């Protein structure tokens, strides 16, 4: 077999291996829970914009949700209640609507009387930055702009992911820092 064919085979085999290695690595990456919170800009349904990095000095709760997601509905009233309770203490809630239709999302916000900031994850860019595996997922950002934990499932009274009591403790802990 000519030398150039052997080199070509070698290059193609290496290429295939790199391709699969990168794919496997990307698939195996977990959601971040520490380090600098991935920055993003999000625009609300009524046109108001937020940039995460400009919220330093505040505790930020980022909640990924979708109107088609039943567990999101389970935690929605609690999150709204928490927002009303903590909004004057330097806590910002950001709802990120994941792969959802606008009309269904607006109906959802109306149904649960959600008043905190909510915007669409255009192009799924924010959910990719946080490598979310589904909804709901909630991320906590401390006053220093670093991630301070997450809940990779619904936050309910007896949730296996994060209970309502744990959520309150987490906010108090972050506010105290």
């Amino acid at each position, binding site marked *: *077999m000519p030398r150039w*064919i052997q080199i070509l085979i070698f290059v193609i085999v290496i*290429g295939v291996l790199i391709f699969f290695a990168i794919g496997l690595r990307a698939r195996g990456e977990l959601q971040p829970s520490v380090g600098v919170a991935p920055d993003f800009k999000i625009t609300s349904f009524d046109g108001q914009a937020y940039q995460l990095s400009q919220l330093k000095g505040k505790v930020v709760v980022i909640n990924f949700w979708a109107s*088609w997601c039943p567990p999101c509905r389970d935690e929605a009233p609690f999150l709204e209640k928490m927002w009303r309770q903590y909004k004057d203490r330097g806590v910002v809630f950001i709802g990120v609507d994941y*792969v*959802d239709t606008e009309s269904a999302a607006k109906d959802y916000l109306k149904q649960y009387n959600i008043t905190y900031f909510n915007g669409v994850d255009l*192009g799924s*860019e924010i959910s*990719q930055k946080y490598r979310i595996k589904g909804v709901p997922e909630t991320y906590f950002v401390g006053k220093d702009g670093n991630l301070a934990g997450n809940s990779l499932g619904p936050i309910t009274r007896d949730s296996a992911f994060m209970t309502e009591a744990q959520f309150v403790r987490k906010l108090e802990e972050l506010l105290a820092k």
Partner: protein
Amino acid sequence: MRAKIFFVIIVALFAFAQFSATPARAQGPNIDDEVNRIAKGLYCPVCPNTPLDVCNTQACINWRAEIKSLLQGGKTEQQIRDIFVAKYGPQVLGAPPAEGFNWLAYVMIPAVILLGALIVWFTMRTWLVRHAPGAAPASAPEIPSEYADRIEKDLKEL
């Protein structure tokens, strides 16, 4: 008289059937078929590897309704695909857009086919040359000189 009434009823029923069937034919291709055709080329990120036309999650149902609404609004298939990519990301497409690292996915398959073809071609050529009528027999493997000398010596001693 009865026959006349019967005839009128039959004619009326036939006319009604014709009238009710006419609008459906006048609309051309059914919009739901059109929705499914476009949905077939889009994928739901909620249930991986499932085309939108066969996915029965609420998300997919909402998306199909959105396609229908966009079609009714006069959007073309390409415009709908562009809107979905802008809103939900390129993962909604059946195939990744041919840009950046994604090129590798497009290059890899032809490259592997080319590689296989080259291997087959060279193997066949070598085999045909070796087995062609009148081809020189394969040369015997070379023996290291020290062994050759020893064999020579042993043969002479015999």
